[in-house]
């Protein structure tokens, strides 16, 4: 297990191919119920992203927890690789989904100022011909806000840390195809070929 502590990538632990990020936000008074609903919407958006597409974000999981009698919010994620290079992608594919729940936090004052200074949400849309320059110019401000509320894990374990999502998805597809083969009565005979011996060993259960 290694610790990543440079300013650019923030602070967090990693295990295998996976890194963790945990952030703690202050909930605006009276906004708990709206925040609760917004975090559910955020999770719903993530659920709707097909696994193939989600591979591009590297996101393995995301969790919002409201605690301290509704006064604080934890947003914790794990992701593949270092988050920093992919944070830009995150912003481009849906900064509005972040703003949806961020607006109920005390830190939104800073976020809102960042949005305004960046020229507005629409500037981050993929159809902005100047998107690349826009990101280079502005996204560091949002990262700084996120890192300002980040606390590093003091211990991190992930049982599937040896495998990336592309590997897992590929294994899943292979499994589905293999099971389809095994459902064919001719499979028993076909798998007797010496070249398929490793597959035959896997065919019994």
């Amino acid at each position, binding site marked *: 297990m290694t610790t990543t502590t440079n300013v650019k990538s923030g602070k967090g632990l990693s295990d295998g191919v996976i890194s963790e990020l945990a952030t703690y936000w202050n909930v605006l008074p009276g906004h708990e119920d709206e925040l609760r609903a917004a975090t559910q919407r955020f999770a719903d958006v993530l659920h709707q992203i097909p696994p193939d597409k989600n591979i591009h974000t590297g996101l393995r999981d995301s969790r919002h927890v409201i605690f301290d009698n509704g006064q604080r919010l934890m947003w914790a994620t794990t992701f593949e690789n270092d988050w920093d290079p992919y944070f830009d992608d995150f912003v481009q594919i849906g900064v509005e989904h972040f703003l949806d729940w961020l607006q109920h936090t005390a830190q939104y004052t800073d976020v809102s100022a960042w949005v305004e200074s960046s020229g507005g949400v629409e500037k981050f849309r993929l159809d902005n011909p100047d998107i690349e320059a826009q990101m280079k110019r502005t996204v560091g401000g949002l990262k700084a806000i996120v890192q300002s509320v980040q606390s590093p894990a003091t211990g991190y374990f992930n049982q599937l840390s040896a495998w990336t999502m592309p590997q897992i998805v590929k294994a899943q597809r292979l499994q589905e195809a293999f*099971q389809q083969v*095994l*459902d064919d009565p001719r*499979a*028993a005979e076909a*798998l*007797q070929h010496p070249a398929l011996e490793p597959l*035959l060993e896997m*065919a*019994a*259960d």
Partner: protein
Amino acid sequence: MTTDTGAALELGDIQAATLMPRPNPYAGAYLALRIDDRHAARELLRRLIPLLEPVSSFDPGRPVSLGVGLSFAGLEAIGVPAESLATFPSEFQQGMAARAAEIGDVGENAPEHWEAPLGSKDVHLVVAALARDTALMEALVVLAQDAVRDLPGVSPIWQLDVHVPPDGREQFGFKDSISEPTVEGTNILGSNPHEAPLKAGEFVLGYEDENGELPPMPQPEVLGHNGTYVAFRKLHQRVAAFRRYLRDNAADTEATWLAAKFVGRWPSGAPLALSPDKDNPELGGDPTRNNAFLYGDDPRGLKCPVGAHARRMNARDSVITGQVRLHRMIRRGTNYGPSLPPGVLEDDGAERGLMFAFVGAHLARQFEFVQKQWVHDGKFIGAPAERDPLIGVQDGGEFTIPQRPIRRRLRGLPDFVVNRGGEYCFMPGLRALRWLAELDT
């Protein structure tokens, strides 16, 4: 293997029906009574108590045996004070019908389809009566009926006659009630010499359990101590459908093999773990050997499928999610209804099945956990789409039989077992029953 370690159990106060193995064969009856007059119910308890045996003096040679339990509604009806009722666990307070969604009683198994009065608040007091034969059983039932005849405030509202045939086989044709846990401190030997005795607190309240804790106990102590919980269920078995499924999915010579893969044992009781390829009646009939096995040498399920009924219900040393010893239970299974004659493939409309009874100190951790996780989920064995092939609510589920060269996967499984109803009961110790009988509320 010794069992006389751990806390000294008050075997003279624990109802024998809680821990003692049942005779085989036997006839029996489950009687449910409604309490309309708490004073009459207390009088009934006073009459029943002398007939109840504790574990310490249980004589397997005695021709009859009784066990008594009360539902939460029954404890209310007999006048247990509210502050005491509040100390029972919430799942017991709610009753089995209210827990239907939790334990997989959905669809055909849902309480709205249950046989009346099961699932209603009228089931208050349940008496389980056992006798060596049907004639004795009938005499015992007459005695019980006489006992309530002059007590108009207590009404028999349901009766189910049960029996265990001489070959000990349940309606699908498999020898049942083989696996029994060893309970520390009872001197009652379980049937698996490879399993360390389980702490008494897993089965009787007031003693240390497998977590090294005293399970939550109803108060006052006199009521809870030496008591346990019982969950009984009337499970209708679709024997003809089971046979047809075997016929349709296996060549004639394979039907028994296929059924054994579902069950985890051969019809004789011989476990697949010890006799994977064919039945072994000698092994199946030998109580010193027919449960003396583990699954550790068969991690892929090539001998006994990891999803087979018996392996799900007691995974022993299999690699699964969870701790097997925290979810063990005492099971009592007894046939009801006539057997379907051998070879018959069409349903004759008769009600037949298994009266199942769970005994344990933790309704939620034992009975409800097993129903929810081990019967109706496959994640714990790495097969989320699979449920118990024999007793699970299938919803068109699948079942994998590992075998060489390639596994066999059955899809679109029908439901072979349907729950006709049941209830959670508290089976008090004898001192507690006397306390209930002498209540002055």
